[in-house]
């Protein structure tokens, strides 16, 4: 199973609809400071259910919506969609038969978030359940954010314990 593509629109600096197609193996994301690389990481965290604004470097969840630039006005909503290749049926259950599984999240400034699995509106809970079998989600070590690695090794023993507890 792997991530085939990422779609973003109105998400942080990715105001225009953008499609990122990924390689099943090693992908390098490059570009100058401030161009939007870590924003892609935030987008992936967000669409798989992140609800802590701080984890997304914001102060409120609506901070992920494009806030405008000198030349452009802010927009009213943000959307991110991940399409997973599931031909190995690593996601089983009711979605096991699908070779492509899409997870989408939308948010507007005046409303909350809405989740969609294969286009069907779902609860955040459903998305978490869908992905938890695959090792994604809180407590997993699949997303290492910028500047966070050294604190793992400087952590107090009780925090290191907590990290390992969250794995099991």
């Amino acid at each position, binding site marked *: 199973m792997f991530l085939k593509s990422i779609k973003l629109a109105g998400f942080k600096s990715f105001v225009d609809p953008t499609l990122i197609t990924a390689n099943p193996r090693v*992908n*390098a994301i*490059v*570009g*100058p400071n401030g*161009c939007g690389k870590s924003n892609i990481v935030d987008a992936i965290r967000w669409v798989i259910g992140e609800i802590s604004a701080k984890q997304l470097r914001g102060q409120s969840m609506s901070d992920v919506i494009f806030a405008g630039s000198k030349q452009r006005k802010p927009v009213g909503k943000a959307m991110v969609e991940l399409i997973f290749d599931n031909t190995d049926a690593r996601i089983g259950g009711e979605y096991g038969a699908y070779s492509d599984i899409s997870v989408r999240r939308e948010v507007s400034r005046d409303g909350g978030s809405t989740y969609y699995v294969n286009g069907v509106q779902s609860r955040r809970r459903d998305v978490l359940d869908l992905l938890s079998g695959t090792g994604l989600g809180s407590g997993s*070590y699949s997303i290492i954010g*910028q500047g966070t690695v050294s604190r*793992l090794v400087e952590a107090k023993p009780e925090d290191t*314990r907590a990290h390992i507890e969250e794995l099991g």
Partner: protein
Amino acid sequence: TRELFKQTYMKVKEAFQVLFPRIFRGGSATLETTSDDWLTTGIQIKAQPPGKRNTSIHLLSGGEKALTAMALVFAMFQQNPAPFCILDEVDAPLDDLNVSRFCDLVQTMANNTQFFMISHNKLTIQMADQMMGITMQEPGVSRIVSVDMAQAIEMAGETA
């Protein structure tokens, strides 16, 4: 639960003991409990780069800490492997030789896991199967361009 935590801890510890000397080309590292009570014990990280005798993990250098942390991250990752792993500039404090050793490890793990590496480092960029270049031609607005190796290396250097 006490037993589940103990099981997970033993597996992470074992994986960490194997990964550390592999990345450092020697030396040793382990995890230790701080008390006998499995319900409440803390977990201490111990690490010795090759040839050194360490009193505390805090005395390690910036690069040594980063590499030790990645050995631990991958040891934990292996217990609950997701389909992909995203690493945002984890190579920033590493010198070139350590970057290439780290890239070797990622290459091995990439046989089973998809990787997304964000990096400004030429060596890291060069080991990728595909490069996505992010640009901000219009200030404040991100775009993606697929780039070849030469373009990617150049892009790692410009400013938005």
